[in-house]
């Protein structure tokens, strides 16, 4: 009797141990994935960078992968990506922050609920649908308003990206504005400041790090966006001009992947590697610097 109890206890203990290990292995899947992804991006993109030459690759302005004397300069694509992202931030961030202020401080409860599900829906719409809308509405509209032969240009990409980063900016700013403790606001109102003054001089500065996080994540979303941009940007490799056709890093990869030969393909992976480095810098800065700062009031 006692013997069998001990034995049962032992198998139970073993089960406990086994499952703890299984859960631990599951938890390490994230680490493993990041390591493998980084390794494979380096392996498949790295050699091409050195073969072309780092300087020629990053700062070359000529992209002619299929010419008899092929040129692989991706500076136009890097600049186009940066310009498109910057433009999207310039337009999308103010709209997003103002909306998040309305959502967290001014809207009645039911309106806030409705607005919140609207923002969630905006976040859920697939990028190809944004691209389709951009192609059918934004591109012709830009062509008509600015009197251009074609509206497929950097400006259209900026408009589409600005809309696509809205949900990111709104929801993260809203959370951080809501996290600001009420006593700060009450003190300000008690001193005779108006509601708007309180919001802009007390609440927003207090929620600053969360709002900056939302902007940086918006940058990450904009710089990595592919399918929506490819449908509106025109896709010609040019140094960026507001109303000129451009090709971004992301779209450059998709455009040529299907017909690229071996070396050309590895250069496309090298573009992916450059993009990956950009994204890693953004992610790591969000996770190390900004997240810590925004924990202040939690």
């Amino acid at each position, binding site marked *: 009797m006692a013997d069998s109890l001990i034995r049962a206890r032992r198998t*139970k203990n073993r*089960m406990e141990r086994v499952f703890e290990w*299984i*859960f*631990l292995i*599951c*938890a390490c*899947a*994230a*680490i493993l*994935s990041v390591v*493998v*992804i980084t390794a*494979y*991006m380096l*392996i498949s993109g790295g050699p091409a960078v050195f073969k072309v030459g780092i300087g020629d690759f990053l700062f070359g302005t000529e992209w002619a992968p299929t010419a008899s004397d092929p040129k692989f300069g991706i500076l136009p694509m890097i600049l186009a990506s940066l310009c498109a992202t910057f433009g999207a931030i310039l337009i999308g961030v*103010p*709209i*997003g922050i*103002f*909306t998040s202020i*309305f*959502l967290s401080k001014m809207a009645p409860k039911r309106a806030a609920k409705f*607005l919140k599900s*609207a923002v969630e*829906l905006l976040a*859920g*719409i*697939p*990028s*190809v*649908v*944004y*691209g*389709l*809308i951009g192609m*059918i*509405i934004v591109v012709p509209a830009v062509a008509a308003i600015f009197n251009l032969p074609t509206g497929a240009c950097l400006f259209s990409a900026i408009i589409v990206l600005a809309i696509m980063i*809205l949900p990111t900016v*709104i929801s993260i700013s809203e959370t951080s504005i809501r996290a600001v403790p009420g006593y700060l606001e009450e003190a300000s109102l008690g001193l005779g400041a*108006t509601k*708007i*003054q309180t919001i*802009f001089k007390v609440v927003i500065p207090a929620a600053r790090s969360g709002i900056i996080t939302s902007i940086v*994540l918006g940058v990450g*979303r904009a710089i*990595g*966006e*592919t*399918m929506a941009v490819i*449908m509106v940007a025109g896709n010609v490799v040019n140094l960026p001009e507001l109303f000129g056709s451009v090709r971004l890093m*992301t779209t450059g*990869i*998709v455009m040529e992947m299907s017909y690229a030969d071996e070396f050309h393909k590895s250069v496309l*992976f090298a573009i*992916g590697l450059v993009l990956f480095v950009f*994204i890693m810098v*953004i*992610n790591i800065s969000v*996770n190390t610097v900004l997240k810590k700062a925004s924990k202040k009031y939690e």
Partner: protein
Amino acid sequence: MSNAEISAGSLTKKRLRLSDNVLKGLIWASTILTLAILAGIVIYVFVQGLPSLSWDFLSTAPSELKGTIGVLPMIINTLYIVVITLLISTPVGIGAAIYLSEYAKKGKLVKLIEFTTEILAGIPSIIYGLFGFVFFCTFMQLQYSIIAGALTLSIMVLPTIIRTTQESLKSVPFSYREGALGMGSTRLHTIRTILLPCALPGILSAVILSIGRIVGESAALIFTAGIGYSMPQNLLGHVSSSGATLTVQLYQYAMRGEKLGVSFGIAAVLIIIVIVINFAARMLSKRLAKKTEGVS
């Protein structure tokens, strides 16, 4: 007018500042603009897309011979990818969340796991696509196939599942664990019989959010699952054949500039799916909130 009168007047009168009004105007304008953009997109897609939605559209394959342009194979491919991705990522994600919230002691390993989860969430889908292409399609020799696409997406949705499950485990009151352990239940038994049932609505909403991401994905699939559009020949064999999802097919049609009606039809289907998914996730999180309300 005496001084006293002036100050009494200004105290009762609401102070109006020009800059306040300008800012208030901007706040209202931005909110209305956000709503108008969303309404515009949804209405436009429905107006353009709903007319091409019909039984034929949903139940045939694109074929020059028969003259049909339906999307049934894409719906099937999308379902395949959703199911396989969830079969891989849900157990792993839940296991990881259980480890993080029930077993792990605060330390370097937990920090590293949480950090890498955030990193995974921030990687754009095009990078997942490139990685999936070299790792699953080329290195593991899966070619362009639904299984390669699903494996790629499993990594992509992992952060969503881990984080949402972790949140819902956190919302289970600590007294439940103490009660179970106090009655002699083992840790594993507590997890199985107390924690997971309590966290179920949260886990379900993690799954639903992941479905939303998978259905909307395109850049990560175009180089991994490919662009095949034939009807599946047999149930299991289809896993290893190339297959375009709804989004990928929409992209194909739109870039060729043909059959815009079909593109908008697919877009309408996608938006309906997103609306249903958001609604379901909302309902579930409401249930989770109700379940743990009052006990803490």
